[in-house]
């Protein structure tokens, strides 16, 4: 199996606050990894280090054989291959849906406008809202916005997708439409690293579960082991809280 993401003894501080402590993580091509853990445990920080939205201070992060350093060329290369979906969607409100999606192909990949728009449309069809192409983000529901955000990321044809709590800002009735798109993506073989508390989703798609607490990876296991036979007490506590609520 090809190793696409590799974190080795990664440490990060915000001033003197130690957010990530000796994080080790390996992701194989096509693997789906679900990360969970209490608020403030460093989940977002960890996945944001992978596309360098945050810089780590110690340890090594290698994506597709390229090490993340201050070298802008490496960062650019990695960002082109790694897509990210945010909790708050972060669509560009001044651009129409189709322009949101075709922007990066046009400017980063230097694709002709027509071709980029065709690609944008095909991804809009994939997330099942082609009829919204000419609207602006403000005119869409949360679920639709998040699906546009996924299409926007996919349009760059990444081979790794990072999701940071993609459904936590959504009303309950819209969560499913977004998760369905993600499940479809998983079935197509995308490498995915997903921070989420949707345990149903985790059971369906995850190859590996990761539980983080206080900046450390406390437990890593297959979903089967993780849910039925968790090792650490903290995982047990967390699971009992999250599954009962």
């Amino acid at each position, binding site marked *: 199996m090809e190793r696409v993401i590799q974190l080795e003894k990664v440490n990060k501080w915000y001033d003197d606050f130690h957010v990530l402590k000796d994080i080790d993580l390996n992701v194989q091509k096509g693997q789906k990894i679900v990360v969970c853990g209490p608020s403030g445990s460093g989940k977002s920080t960890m996945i944001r280090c992978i596309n360098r939205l945050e810089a780590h201070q110690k340890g090594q992060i290698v994506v597709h054989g390229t090490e993340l350093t201050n070298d802008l060329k490496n960062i650019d290369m990695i960002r082109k291959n790694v897509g990210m979906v945010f909790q708050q969607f972060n669509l560009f409100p001044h651009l129409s849906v189709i322009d949101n999606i075709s922007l990066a192909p046009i400017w*980063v990949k230097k694709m002709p406008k027509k071709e980029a728009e065709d690609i944008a449309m095909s991804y809009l069809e994939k997330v099942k809202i082609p009829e919204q192409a000419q609207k602006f983000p403000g005119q869409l529901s949360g679920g639709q916005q998040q699906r546009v955000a996924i299409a926007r990321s996919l349009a760059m044809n990444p081979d790794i997708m990072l999701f940071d709590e993609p459904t936590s800002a959504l009303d309950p009735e819209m969560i499913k439409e977004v998760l369905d798109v993600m499940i479809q993506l998983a079935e197509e073989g995308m490498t995915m690293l997903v921070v989420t508390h949707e345990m149903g989703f985790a059971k369906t798609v995850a190859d590996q579960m990761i539980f983080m607490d206080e900046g450390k990876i406390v437990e890593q296991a297959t979903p089967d082991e993780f849910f039925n036979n968790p090792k650490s007490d903290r995982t047990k506590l967390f699971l009992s809280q999250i599954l009962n609520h």
Partner: protein
Amino acid sequence: MTAFSNQSLMRNKYYSWIIKNLFSSWVNSLMTVVAIIFIYEVGTFFLNWAIFGADFRTNFRGELITDRTLCSKNISPGEFGACWAIIYARWDQFMYGFYPIEQVWRVNFVYVLLPLAIIGILFDKLPFRKYFIYFTFIYPFLAYFMLYGGPGLSVVGTNKWGGLLVTLFLGVTGIGLAFPLSIVLALGRRSKMPIVKSLCVVFIEFIRGVPLITLLFTANVMLPLFLPDGVNPDNLLRALVAVTLFQSAYMAEAIRGGLQAIPRGQIEAAQSLGLNYWQTTRKIILPQALKIAIPPIVNTCIGLFKDTSLVLIIGLFDLLGIGRAALADMTWTKLYYEVYVFISLVFFIFCFGMSRYSLYLEKKLKTDNS
């Protein structure tokens, strides 16, 4: 429902508004009455002075007024109305300064095209906006050629420019040049590069900490020292440099406000898609930030437009300078009120226009975002 009851409903609404807002308590009622009397008195006095009892070109005897002694108020003690003849007599100077009268069509040409050059920037839904914007970029060169002259047109030195021409030239060109400079300054101020950042901070804070009048003096005296021998920019250009730097610092702060209002997530989304700094800035941040910043930018423009009148202290004849020159002329001296009211009116028209535009934008922004 009949039309009548609808009407009385309307009237009822009217009354209740008046009661609620103007006569809600006895203090409020008293203030309302005092205010009405005050507005009435001042209003009628002003209208009598400025219009009903005023001389325009002729006095109450029907004679053409050619100097101040022929103004009605200087003939009969019972007359007190304004004597607008001074404005008529000096009209060309107010509009063009000392521009050769047979060449004045060139200035008019530039004046007439000015709205066409600006309209494309002001209204984003204008039909054929693209072509208006093209014209906006051509206009400065066209205007310069028409005003200053060149192949085919006689040269009219800027020392001959004056009045509204100088006021508009400084205001419009100053704002136009300051705009790109202010974007650079605002971005520089948020830069992570310490040298760029501190240069911008020092520049902005220095300019904001100094009165325009000082900058004008400084530019007037110091600019020639910085330039090679023989290059001797004229007074108008020196003033333009001062005005541009001044305006750019204030505009930069307005734009910085807009930049700060853009959520961090916008930049992160752009970065995660692989856009570099300049692409992110140009495609994502600036379009949003400038939209937010337009109302405060327009406010700084209003301030600058009025402040251009300070150039009179370095010997330029803007509207105010021409007015003072007219008053210094023995044939027209002492008609202060007429001259200053007229100048105020001209400034008011432009500034009020800008102010209304800013309000229109604020309303539009609110509806756009909802």
